[in-house]
């Protein structure tokens, strides 16, 4: 049976790992390659590396980091951050990334999803969506959650799927950095209405929160950063707790 996935996310800035609370107040938490290897040994199912200040002149640094990660780590990983061109994706996949996640660039030019899916296959295109609950609606935000758009979460996720995204990574800005638990309602709607896997992100604080998002929202994967980085949750303990709760996990 297909297992539910636990995905530590490593935010990268200048080749180092950072994690913010509600996208600000960044703190340094180490070397991405080293951290990635530790997570892999602890039983992480995949890794996500997000370059939070990626710009075209920094792209080379990211590509060489991706290559280092690919050399060391024997589980799949996704790379994201500032990806806007087919050429960026080609370089990152070529360096050894298994998937790329795209976010703002796809919002402003949705054809990017179609182009990437046609060129590289939908299995390696993760559409990352940051959304916040504003006036009774889940609105899509870009630029690391700083800019509100007129897109609505569910419609955008569906469009992403139709255009060829292979997975949706939904970050609930209402929860991100709060450690109050994952957003259950919106994740459940995504998981029930989409035909592609959904990764829930934002709000992980306790082992229980992970069980909740799998059992109540039926997402395919759960992503978290700080609870793993600062050792508040050990992936091994988490997997055992999930198994106890009747959730299929790889141990």
């Amino acid at each position, binding site marked *: 049976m297909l297992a539910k996935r636990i995905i530590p996310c490593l935010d990268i800035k200048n080749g180092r790992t950072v994690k913010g609370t509600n996208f600000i107040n960044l703190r340094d938490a180490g070397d991405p390659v080293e951290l990635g290897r530790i997570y892999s040994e602890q039983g992480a199912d995949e890794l996500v590396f997000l370059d939070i200040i990626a710009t075209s002149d920094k792209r080379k640094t990211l590509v060489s980091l991706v290559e280092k990660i690919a050399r060391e780590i*024997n589980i799949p990983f996704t790379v994201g951050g500032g990806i806007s061109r087919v050429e960026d994706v080609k370089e990152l996949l070529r*360096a050894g990334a*298994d998937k790329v996640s795209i976010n703002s660039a796809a919002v402003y030019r949705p054809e990017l999803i179609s182009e990437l899916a046609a060129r590289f296959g939908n*299995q390696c295109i993760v559409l990352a969506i940051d959304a916040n609950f504003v006036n009774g609606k889940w609105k899509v935000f870009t630029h690391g959650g700083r800019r509100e758009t007129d897109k609505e979460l569910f419609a955008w996720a569906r469009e992403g799927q139709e255009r060829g995204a292979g997975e949706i990574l939904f970050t609930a800005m209402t929860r991100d950095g709060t450690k109050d638990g994952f957003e259950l309602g919106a994740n459940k709607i995504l998981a029930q209405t989409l035909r*592609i896997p959904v990764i829930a992100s934002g709000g992980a604080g306790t082992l229980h929160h992970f069980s909740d998002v799998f059992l109540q929202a039926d997402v*395919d994967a759960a992503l978290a950063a700080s609870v793993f980085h600062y050792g508040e949750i050990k992936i091994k303990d988490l997997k055992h707790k999930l198994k106890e709760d009747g959730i299929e996990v790889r141990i």
Partner: protein
Amino acid sequence: MNIAIIDYGAGNVRSVQFALERLGYSGKLTADAGEISWADKVIFPGVGEASSAMAALRQYGLDEVIPQLKQPVLGICLGLQLMGSYSEEGDTECLGIFPAKAVAFPENLKVPQVGWNTLAALKSPLFRGVHAGEYAYFVHSYYVAVNDFTVAQSEYGLPFSAALAKDNFFACQFHPEKSGKTGEQVLRNFLEIQK
């Protein structure tokens, strides 16, 4: 040992190369028919869409070369599907090494299947030291049904071939290069197969 990793622009070939390096081997990325024919072992990776991958193989003349290879060959993911006779994806005639068709997963399942799934009914030297119930990493939207050449099964809504073997040809639907220690064991087993 000369290991050729077929590099025809449709695979995450570096990941395979790095996985071999972690095991102490080195693999050469190549689309050269001569290099591939002379290699001791050939790895045939693939991600992406079937018809464009077949077109790329034809462009390099590899559609003729691969089925004729006599040394151990390991297809990975799309590589497995292309080693069959036909894929529904892009209505594609494939290499015909296995008399098997790749068909789309039914509509009611999430596609692609992404993630770690268990291996069962293991029956090939490829799985020496690997136990039923171990997990491997899969990413695919099409599958090959269980058939006479199936040497590992998995289940996603329905049973499907996680691996195939016939004579010198081996193929995994999962990514051994991304499947942690289980995947490393499969790769090691493949590299240790004697001609």
